[in-house]
């Protein structure tokens, strides 16, 4: 599949300034002596067959089209300092191209069917398989995220979702942090921040969870579209026997959510009612119960052992 380069990349390129004109736009390094003998440096293994490996296709060479229309097929050696180092086989040897981000028009990855398959699996909520396929796809593409359109890293939010929904908190945090720098959509970023927060809480990393939740509440403001940060702060307080701060934190989204249904509002009511009873404020607990019923807010379906963050597409 061909993915055009992200259009919002910077226009500057360090390649053009140093490449001799006869070599065109691209600075590449010919290694005639060393690479003439195939045995000295074999061709990339990506071109070898991979029997039994369902994701073998993903290791096939990618195709990069430059802004001049030139097509290069090879494998990414590394990406550094806004330059893609592309290893392209030439005869028995190979040439390494250093392509500035600005010089790349599009990238074509092999494995379009595998990507489609990942989407199907995601739609069917087959989370372990989603993880397996998306990990393979991520491995294939992650180095080129800086030059890919925003939809591409956004696609992998599904992987974090799968980790989150299967209770793999550590993996969820790791992958969310990996993806966050490349995500442009506020919706995606918010989801990953939520996952990171919940995962820390579930891993019982109290200090970190409290810090993250505090930052979360400041960043999202009083009319947040979720009550998660407040809920985590409240749960942390309640776990420490501090019913008063637990109650106040929960009341924040209860006060400001209005008639818009924000995720975790039910949980906030639940904690607020418990905290009220802990404080001996039965009347308050009853008021909150009545309000919960009047506002027709129902219990969400959380995972058995944790909180489930709803994802809006």
């Amino acid at each position, binding site marked *: 599949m061909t993915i055009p380069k992200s259009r919002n990349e910077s226009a500057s390129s360090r390649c053009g300034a140093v490449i001799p004109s006869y070599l065109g736009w691209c600075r590449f390094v010919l290694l005639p002596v060393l690479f003439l003998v195939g045995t000295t440096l074999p061709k990339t293994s990506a071109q070898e067959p991979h029997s039994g490996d369902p994701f073998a296709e993903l290791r096939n060479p990618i195709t990069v089209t430059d802004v001049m229309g030139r097509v290069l097929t090879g494998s990414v050696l590394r990406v550094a300092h806004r330059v893609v180092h592309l290893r392209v086989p030439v005869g028995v040897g190979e040439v390494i191209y250093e392509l500035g981000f600005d010089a790349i028009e599009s990238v074509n990855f092999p494995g379009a069917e595998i990507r489609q398959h990942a989407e199907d699996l995601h739609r069917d909520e087959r989370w372990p398989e989603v993880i397996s396929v998306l990990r393979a796809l991520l491995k294939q593409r992650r180095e080129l995220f800086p030059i890919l359109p925003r939809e591409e890293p956004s696609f992998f939010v599904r992987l974090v979702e799968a980790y989150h929904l299967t209770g793999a908190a550590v993996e969820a945090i790791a992958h969310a942090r990996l993806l966050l720098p490349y995500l442009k959509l506020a919706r995606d970023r918010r989801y990953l921040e939520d996952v990171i927060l919940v995962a820390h809480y579930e891993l019982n990393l109290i200090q970190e969870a409290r810090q993250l939740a505090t930052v979360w509440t400041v960043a999202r403001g009083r*009319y947040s579209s979720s009550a998660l940060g407040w809920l985590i702060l409240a749960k942390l307080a309640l776990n420490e026997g501090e019913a008063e701060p637990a*109650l106040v934190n929960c009341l924040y989204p209860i*006060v*400001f959510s*209005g*008639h*818009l*249904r924000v995720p975790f509002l039910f949980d906030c009511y639940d904690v607020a009612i418990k905290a009220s009873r802990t404080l001996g404020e039965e009347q308050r607990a009853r*008021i909150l119960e009545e309000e919960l019923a*009047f506002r027709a807010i129902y219990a969400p379906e959380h995972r058995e052992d944790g909180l489930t963050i709803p994802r809006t597409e």
Partner: protein
Amino acid sequence: MKFTDASTVRSSIDSRMNMGAPSSYFKWVLPVVALFSVSSLPAPEPLLDSLAGITLSAFLDRAVEAFVVGDFLLADELFDQLEVRFGSEPEFQDDEFQRATLPVRGYVALANGSSRAAVDHFERFLEKFGPASRQRRFVLFSLAQAYAEIGKRERALQTYQSVEAEYPGSGEAAMALLRRCEIQFELNRFDEAFRDLNLFYESEAAFSLRLQARLRALRAALDSGRKGLGAEILLQTEWPFSSMPEVAVLAFAALEAGDFLLDTGEPAKAIRAYRYVPEKHTLVALQERRLAGLRSSLNRRQERGSDAPARVWMQHYQGIAAAVESQLDSLKEAEDYTPAFLLRFGQAFLLAERYREAAIVFQSLAEDRDAPLRMRRESHYRWVLSFQARDRWDEALLIARDYLNAYPDSELAPSVLFLIAKAYQGQDRYEDAVEVLDSLIVDFPGHRWVAQWIFTRGFCRLLNGEYAVARGDFSEYTTRFSEGLLRVNAQLWHSLTYFYERDYDSALYGINALLGEAESHHLLPEIKYRRASVLYARREYEAALRAIDDFLSSYEETHRAAEARVLRGDILMGQGELMGAAVAFSQVTPEAGPLYPYAVFQTGKIHRAREDYPRMVAHFNAYVTRAAAEYRPRLSEALYWIGWAHDQMGRGHEALPIFARVLREFGNDRSATEILLTLRAFGKLSARLENRSVGAPEVVEDFEDWLQAERSRAMHSARLTYYSRLSLYLADTYRKGGRDHVADLLILEIVETVPLRDLDAAGLGKVGQVLAGLGFPSAEEHFETLLSEFPASSERAVAFYGLARIHFQDGEYPEALGFLERFGGETPTHVLAADAAILEGEILLRTGRPESAIENMEELLRIKSARGRPHARALTLIAQARIQLGELEKAIAYYQRVYSLYQAYPDLVALSYVESALIFEELGDLEAALSTLVEMLGRADLKAQDDAVRALAARDRLAARVDALKRMNSASSQEEIVR
């Protein structure tokens, strides 16, 4: 003239109008007109030119085409010309042609604003084709609209009703109802309109239409001033807030309804209403989303069809979209309503006593830098109120100070200062409160709240025990603000200041005077209750009983009722009517809170006094076996009394397990009381049973050994409260055995091993006393902890007395007197009361107030329970006071009473002898002085007293003087004889 193929024409119209069912409009064979009368056409020349020679069919084609593309002006002209040119043609007059064209012409005329022409077309259609026509529904609906537009509202109403009646359940019927109600609103026929809209809302019609009807009813109710109805409609409807199109209309209606509910004293409902009001940014985003949805829906409708009935619907939705767009534009342009709304929202929470939520809202607005300054300032002020309302004085104080820092020149500054004073009052920092109120009264003498400030200052002073100055404030209030709202309150408190000074006569006088003035005042029950209390304090039990019975007969349901029943019990006890008192106490229910256990234990005390031990056991058993969830404090105490009663009945084997249970279950419970008493009872009983060889498992062989072992076990298991109690008990035992130093060592061990947080009230008091006696500064910490952590404990008396003593020793007499006043006010019946009175007497003497000291000590001498050493001490203090007053003979008389009557207190006896002797000496009666000292020194029991040394020195000095005098006298006598 030639004819085209009918099916071709129909297909042409159908395909362009995409009519579906209404294609039947044009099922006839259209004639083609050959000739035009060009001159009669009002259309522009070029158009008319182009129509010259056109056939009827082609003419019709052009008209329909104009209709389809929405060029209704052109369509209208073309249809008119069609009639002008071909009106006399049989094809034109053909029923099928008319059936097809009249509705379209009517609609076109309506769309162009030619409503009268539209009426004409539609009426002609109905007249000609009657009720059987398929287009009837559309024609009726459009005709009604046309009637309305030309002002024939009644006809319009009837016609809409026809649509509703003939096509029930259809979309047109629903729209007809909505439009009919609009006309009813225009005709001020509100009741009919609301009734119909309500019926429609409850019908089976499409939800979106029912919702529109509901929203219209809501808006109309509010606009017509029926705000209660509007609020009812709002709250009784399940609005699909996140998906309804006119969300802004709902939001603003909710804002209006919420304001109405708030203003009419229904804050809880106002909160519900306000929940439909999102902040402006959210509302704009919602409205934008709805508008985009509506437009996309309109586009889809447009793609699906554009026949006349479809256009009616499109027109309907276009109307909604236009309204939504207009609302959105207004919303974007308007000033942000959010801050003002938040103020109201917070206020609703405040009035609904949901103070935390109120604080959240007010804090949020106060800290919102985008909000207008005056809103932030107002919100900050109310933020203070939210904490004040919860008695969270620390936070209230901090927020109030922040307010003054942020807005020092605000017009609300005096109000905030007043809140600060109230916060100090809430923290029992009365002097600070008075200081703030002083400055307010001086700096803002004309402020509208000055009366309240004066009253509050008086109240703070009263709470601080400064009764005389408090009285001054209450007097000032009643003098300056004779019409003030708090006049009766001020008068009542004025009288009660006397009560707290135990000047019951003045208190009763004031209250009696107030009774006549406050006949219809809401404080009348309070005044009557206080009157009964004063009578009780004066020990006028009969009058007190009449007063409290009078109160209870009139105010059975007031908040003082439980206290009144308790007071009634106390009065009857005072009269010796023990069973009557028990009955009165039994009427105090658990709902009375702390009064309930008081009544329970008073009843127990009655059974004890009557030596009715079985009843006492049953009574306390009923209390301890109440469900655990019920309010039942002082359980350990109740159990102790059960055990005690069993013991009195000679059932020690039943008492012992109960005492053991108290120690086991409550020994380490810091809030449990009577643990030391239980230990004592356990020890005594155990020894008795051991002697009688009763084989109860709880019996311990050697109680002191058991105590030591139990202490070790308590320490080992970190039950430090229990450990401290066992140690204190042991220390008491040592002290009684005269081993004071061992007792002190045990107490110091407690100080080292048990943190303050594990000491109970008695422990804090006893350890504090020992530390104070040894001169350790940490005594103060123990006393202060006792005061702060056990605010209801009678052991606070120890702290009051201890702290007073420390201040006395440091020469800080006002501070010492302050604690003694608290002692008298809060723990007057404590066993240290006499010591406190004596200390007060000493302070009065030190501060040059001998008359007051004499008065206090005389009062102490009247108290039977203070007989013994306190009385002896009081006599010595009176004697000292008399000396200060120069009444030396009187002083001698008091000292003589001590050494004559109080032989059990050799230190005081010795002191009295010496002081008497010295006064005699001062009076020049040296022989009396000497004989006094000789008498004293002749008593063996006084020889070890400190004053014996003074006495010896004085005796020698006096003896020498007497001897010298005698010799001088003798010499004088001889001289006289010689002469």
